[in-house]
């Protein structure tokens, strides 16, 4: 056991950090700067980070989920408004069913509450199905039940949904009655274990994204606590403020430990175990991230409740990442199921 990053992993983290620090949004107004966002997107494209899970030799991905999680964490920390999680999950689906790499930008379709991938039953997608992280994508991948599991099919995207929840990652509606084109050879459906592993990747990446968001909002809040003065002193000198921030720091560090393990587990453990390990991480990180982001707003006081303060951009990004494949409750249930506790109705 040695859970330190390798020198290559450290270098990857540093280059991702540099890209988002240089080209990511630093103010709410920056979010409207399309020229800047395009530069960030081009930098991510040139780096090949969205193809980390594309098939390399055999069926193996080009890089492990640890590398993908390193990118996700840095993009979360810097509120990167360039697609990553959606594209990575799409590349993983293609790899698992033996489909050729995408020729155009794409993402994945989910059910309306994002708790599961969209499955087209007899040619019809569930009402309100939506493509996540859909900027620059013309199509999304969805699942279709077939003999032996699921097929992966491509559907085209319709209108982009104004970014209401996560201001950095708009979604898109899936065209009504859109035609579905099955990808990959018929003899290679997505098996139940493939789907578990894909879900594990999604939980691992969104956990890493949440850790990044927590690091980002914590550093913004600490900076503000050192600068803002009331009663003639910095508010960061008040013990009540210090203890809120200390709790946020502790929650972030615990999250970091479980998210690192989750990223490792995606490829290293059997599918069932990988799903349990990543669900555990996602439950922990979801609960922590909401608390940490709320602390970020509280420390900013009145300013923290205005649109122009970055605090809510972190919270909104967290709210999206929490919902993708389920947050604290859904993943707590997965952990209980894995341990055979809670019976058939569990917490429901």
């Amino acid at each position, binding site marked *: *056991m*040695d859970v*330190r990053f390798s020198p290559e992993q450290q270098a990857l983290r540093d280059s991702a950090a540099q890209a988002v620090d240089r080209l990511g949004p630093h103010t709410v107004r920056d979010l409207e700067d399309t020229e800047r966002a395009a530069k960030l997107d081009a930098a991510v494209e040139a780096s090949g980070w969205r193809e980390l899970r594309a098939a390399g030799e055999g069926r193996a991905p080009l890089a492990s989920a640890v590398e993908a999680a390193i990118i996700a964490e840095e993009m979360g920390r810097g509120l990167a408004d360039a697609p990553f999680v959606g594209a990575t999950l799409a590349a993983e689906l293609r790899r698992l069913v033996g489909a050729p790499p995408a020729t155009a930008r794409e993402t994945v379709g989910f059910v309306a509450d994002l708790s599961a991938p969209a499955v087209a039953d007899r040619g019809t997608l569930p009402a309100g199905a939506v493509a996540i992280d859909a900027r620059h994508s013309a199509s999304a991948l969805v699942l279709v039940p077939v003999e032996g599991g699921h097929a992966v099919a491509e559907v085209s995207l319709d209108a982009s949904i104004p970014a209401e929840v996560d201001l950095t990652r708009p979604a898109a509606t899936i065209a009504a009655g859109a035609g579905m084109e099955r990808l990959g050879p018929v003899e290679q459906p997505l098996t139940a274990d493939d789907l578990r592993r894909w879900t594990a990747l999604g939980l691992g990446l969104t956990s890493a994204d949440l850790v990044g968001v927590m690091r980002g909002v914590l550093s913004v809040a*600490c900076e503000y606590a050192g600068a803002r003065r009331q009663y003639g002193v910095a508010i960061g000198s008040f013990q009540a*403020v*210090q203890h809120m921030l200390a*709790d946020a720091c502790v929650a972030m560090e615990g999250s970091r430990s479980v998210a690192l*393990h989750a990223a490792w587990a995606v490829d290293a453990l059997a599918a069932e175990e990988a799903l349990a390990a990543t669900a555990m991480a996602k439950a922990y990180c979801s609960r922590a991230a909401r608390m940490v982001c709320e602390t970020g707003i509280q420390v900013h006081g009145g300013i923290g409740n205005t649109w122009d303060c970055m605090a809510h951009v972190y919270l909104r990004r967290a709210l999206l990442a929490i919902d993708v494949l389920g947050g604290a409750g859904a993943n707590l249930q997965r952990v209980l199921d894995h341990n055979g506790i809670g019976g058939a109705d569990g*917490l429901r």
Partner: protein
Amino acid sequence: MDFGDSPEEADFRRRLRDWLRDNNPGLPASSTSDAYWAGQAPWHQALYDAGFFGMSWPKDIGGQGLPSVYEVIVDAELARAGAPPRPSLGYLVVGIGHHASDDVKQRFLPGLVNGRDRWCQGFSEPDAGSDLASLRTRAELDGDEYVITGHKVWTSYSDAADWCLLLARTDPDVPKHRGLSAFAVPMRQPGIEQRPLKMINGVTREFGEVLFDGARVPAANMIGQPGEGWRLAMTVVSHEREPGELGYVARYSKVVSELGRQVKADPGKFGPEQVRDLGWAMIEAEMLRLHVSRRLSDRMDGISHGPEGSVDKLLMTAVEQAVGHAALSVGGTPHGDGDDMWLKVYLYSRAQSVMGGTSQIQRNLVASRILGLPAS
């Protein structure tokens, strides 16, 4: 980055698992009865003699000289077997190891590591808890001995101790942090009286008060230099806060798996609230195992004596208290003549946010030393 076992680690894990099959002393899950503490010394010695204690300490003091991550394997296997956690004294070894001269280290550390000598830590006093530096116990030089007068309290394992790592004031004329020195004081002598204290869960062998009235200690038993006591105390408490040093992961995992077995055995008896409390306790305990893996891996770059221990202590406290809540919720409160073990596990969990420096003090340290917030 790899959370998996290397071939050597897998081999070690197998050997430990085999050994535990025949050598689990079957003590209570936690500090819920005096039997738990009475069994500590034999358990420590058995673990040590079999080569499963002090994995990362240097060989010349009786350690195994292996990477720190072996402790993660020990904790996991102890939990899996339902065995007691490894004895929590790494912080004394690290503290003495970091400050004592080679000669003093060789005199005291082997017996501390092999479990033949029992130790306690005499820092806190009735009027000096969080504000430890204000302590008043005096050590006055008399020939080549120091004479000790004072009152220590909440001293863990004081009833069984052969030695006390004592913090005392050797110079009353300098600022309070600078006048302290540390000693290895023999406990079994006329000038020392030890009185057990009863904890809120009824256990009487967890800690006691120790009264020093003219007790004597050779000057050669000073750990570090005169005036180095405060720095030594800070080294000790910073590691006393690390779950990697304490091995409590095994205790938490053991309690949650026992509670899990109860729920599985009779699922209809438990409602969603209870199941939810147990689920979070499982997640918290697993988080701590992974966090310890991360911290002990970082130690392969060299041990640091920094403020991270405060983060870890707060995480560990959250785990212990979530596990305590699950014990209360699933185990239940015995209003009739039921088993009160889970109630005792719960009550014991309240101490975790006090011992080793309270949670409020840890938050102060995280705020100032990790987050760099301005002094209050």
